[in-house]
C-alpha cells in the first residue's frame, strides 16, 4: 500500500517538475540573455549558460532612459487610473442590479449580459473611437476601451452582492438613516473586498499587459507603454529580416537596440508582475475558480 503511494508521489513529482521547468526555463532564458555579453549571444545564440556576462544592456538602458521612464510612467498611469475608475464603474453598476428595490434591474442586467454574447468587433469599435471620439494618439485610447474589461465582471460582482452581502445589513443601514449611496460606500463595499480585489487584480493585469490598444490607436511614440515599446522593437526586427539588405539597412540596424538590450527591456516589463505575484496569488487563483463556476 505505502509503496504504491510512494510510487505515485514520485511519478506525480517527476511529471510536475518537468512541467514546472518548462514554465520557468523560458523566463530564465530571457533573464540570462539580458545579462549576457552581446558578442557571446551573436556567436553561440541565446543560452541559459552564456559564455560571458555583461551589464552593458542595463547600463545602456540607464543611459538612454528618457523614453523608457516615460513608457513606464504611461504603463503605471493607465494601470492605476484604468483599474480604479473601471472598478468604481463596475461596482456602481453591479450594486443596483443586485437590489430588489431597484425597479429596472432585470432589463438592465440583460443589457449587460447581452454584451457578453454579441459584439460589434474591431472595425466598428475602431471607427467609434477614432471618428466620433477622436481618441487616436491620446492617453484616453489606452484607458477607455478597457474600462469594463468584460460585462462578465459586472455580473460576477452582482452575484457577490446578491449572495454575500446580507439584505438585513443593508436594510438596517437604511433604517439608521443612511442614504443608499452611503450604505453602498460605507457598508457594502467594505464587506466586498474579496470580489473587489479579484476583479481589480484581473483588470490591473489586463492594463499592465495591454498592447492591443496601443497598436491600433497610437502611432506617436510619446504615448507608448512598455508593451508598445517592446512591440515596436519586435516589428522593426521583423521588418529588417524581411527587407533586402540594401545600403540604408545598416543605419536602421544600428538604431534597433541590441539583442541583450531588447531582452533587458522585456525583463523590466515582466519583473513587476513577477514580484507582485506572490502577494496576489491567492486572489488570482480564487478569481479563476469563481470565474469558472459561472462562466
Amino acid at each position, binding site marked *: 500500500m505505502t509503496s504504491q*503511494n510512494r510510487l505515485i*508521489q514520485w*511519478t*506525480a*513529482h517527476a*511529471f*510536475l517538475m518537468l512541467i*514546472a521547468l*518548462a*514554465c520557468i526555463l*523560458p*523566463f530564465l*532564458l*530571457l533573464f540570462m540573455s539580458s545579462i549576457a555579453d552581446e558578442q557571446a549571444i*551573436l556567436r*553561440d*545564440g*541565446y*543560452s541559459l549558460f552564456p559564455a560571458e556576462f555583461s551589464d552593458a544592456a542595463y547600463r545602456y538602458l540607464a543611459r538612454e532612459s528618457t523614453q523608457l521612464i516615460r513608457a513606464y510612467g504611461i504603463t503605471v498611469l493607465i494601470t492605476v487610473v484604468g483599474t480604479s475608475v473601471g472598478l468604481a*464603474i463596475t461596482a*456602481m453598476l453591479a450594486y*443596483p442590479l443586485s437590489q430588489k*428595490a431597484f425597479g429596472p434591474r432585470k432589463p*438592465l442586467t440583460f*443589457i*449587460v449580459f447581452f*454584451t457578453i*454574447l*454579441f*459584439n*460589434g*468587433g*474591431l*472595425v*466598428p*469599435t475602431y471607427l*467609434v473611437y477614432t471618428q*466620433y471620439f477622436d481618441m487616436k494618439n491620446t492617453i484616453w485610447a489606452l484607458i477607455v476601451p478597457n474600462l*469594463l474589461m468584460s*460585462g462578465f465582471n*459586472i455580473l460576477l460582482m452582482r452575484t457577490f452582492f446578491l449572495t454575500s452581502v446580507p439584505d438585513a445589513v443593508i436594510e438596517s443601514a437604511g433604517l439608521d438613516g443612511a442614504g*443608499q*449611496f452611503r450604505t453602498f460606500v460605507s457598508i457594502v463595499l467594505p464587506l466586498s473586498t474579496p470580489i473587489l480585489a479579484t476583479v481589480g487584480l484581473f483588470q490591473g*493585469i489586463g492594463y499592465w499587459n495591454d498592447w*492591443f490598444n496601443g497598436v491600433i490607436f497610437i502611432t506617436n511614440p510619446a504615448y507608448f507603454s512598455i*508593451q508598445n515599446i*517592446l512591440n515596436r522593437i*519586435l*516589428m522593426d526586427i521583423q521588418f529588417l529580416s*524581411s527587407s533586402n539588405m540594401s545600403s540604408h539597412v545598416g543605419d536602421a540596424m544600428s538604431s534597433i537596440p541590441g539583442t541583450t538590450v531588447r531582452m533587458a527591456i522585456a525583463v523590466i*516589463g*515582466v519583473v513587476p*508582475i*513577477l514580484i507582485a*505575484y*506572490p502577494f496576489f*496569488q491567492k486572489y488570482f*487563483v480564487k478569481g*479563476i*475558480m469563481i470565474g469558472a463556476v459561472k462562466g
Partner: protein
Amino acid sequence: MGTTLWQRTWRNVARNKAMYVMVIPGLLYLLVNNYLPMLGLVIAFKDVDFAKGIWHSDWIGFKNFEYLFKTSDAWLITRNTLGYNAVFIVVNFAFSIAIAIFLNEITSKFFSRFYQSVLLLPYLISMIIVSYLVFALLSQDTGMMNHTILPLFGIKEISWYNEPVYWPFILVIVNLWKNAGFLCVVFLAAIIGIDKEYYEAATLDGASKWKQIRLITIPLISPVIVMMLLLFIGRIFYADFGLFFQVPMESGPIMNATNVIDTYVYRGLMQIGDIGMSAAAGCYQSIVGFVLVLLSNYVVRKINKDQALF
C-alpha cells in the same frame, strides 16, 4: 387600478434616486463601447467613404461579402480559426486534466502550492513577452533551437519563421504553455470538491489509484469538463489575436498557416486599408460567433439548467 406603469416607475425612481444615478456611468459606457459598435456592424453593407462620413456612405448590400467569399482567404481564415481552436481545446483539456489529477496527488502543501504558482506564470504575461521568448528559441541566427538543441540531435538548422509546416505545432505548444495553468486550476478546484469518502471506500475495497482516477475522479468532474468544453466551443469562432499576430511576427511565408479571422480583420483595417472587406469579415465573425454561443448554451441547458448562462 389606480397606478399606471408610469406612476409606479416614477415612484421607484423617487425612492431609489441614488441607485438610478449610480448606474448611469456604466450604462453610458456600455452604450458607447458595446452598443454603438453593434449598430456599426451595418458598415459591412456600406461602401465606406470618409468624405461622406460613415453613416452617409452609400449602401451596397452584400457586395463586401461577395468579394470576401470570392477570395480564397475566406475559406483559409475560417479553416484556420476553427481548426486551431479545435486542436487547442483537445490538447489543452487533455493536458490540464492530467496535470490537475497529478497535482491533487501531491500531499506536500508546499509543493502543491509551488507547482500551482509556477504553472500560472505563463498566464500572467503578455503575448508580446511570449513572442520574445519564442523568438529567443526560434530565431534563425541566434535561436536556442538552431544553436543548441538541434545540433544535439544532429539536425541542421531550420528557418522557423519561413517554414509553414512547423507552425501548427508551434502555435499549439505556445498556446498550451500559456493557458494550461488556467484550465488546470479550474479542474483542480473541481477535483478538490469531490467527497473524500468515495476514495476511502474505494481504497477499502482495494481499488488501485488508476482505477480510482478512472472510475471516481473523471466521472465526478465530467460535468465541469463538459461545461468548460461547451464554453470554449461557444468561442471557437474567435481566435486569440495576440497568439496569431505577435508570435509569428507577421512573417509572410508562413501567413497561410497563421492567418485567422481576427488577424485578417486587423490587417484589412490597419494595414491594407480595405475597410469594406475587413468589416464584412468582422460581421461574419460576430454573427456566426453569436449563433455558436447560443447553440452551445442551448446544449448546456439541455444537460444541466443551472450551468447555463441563460
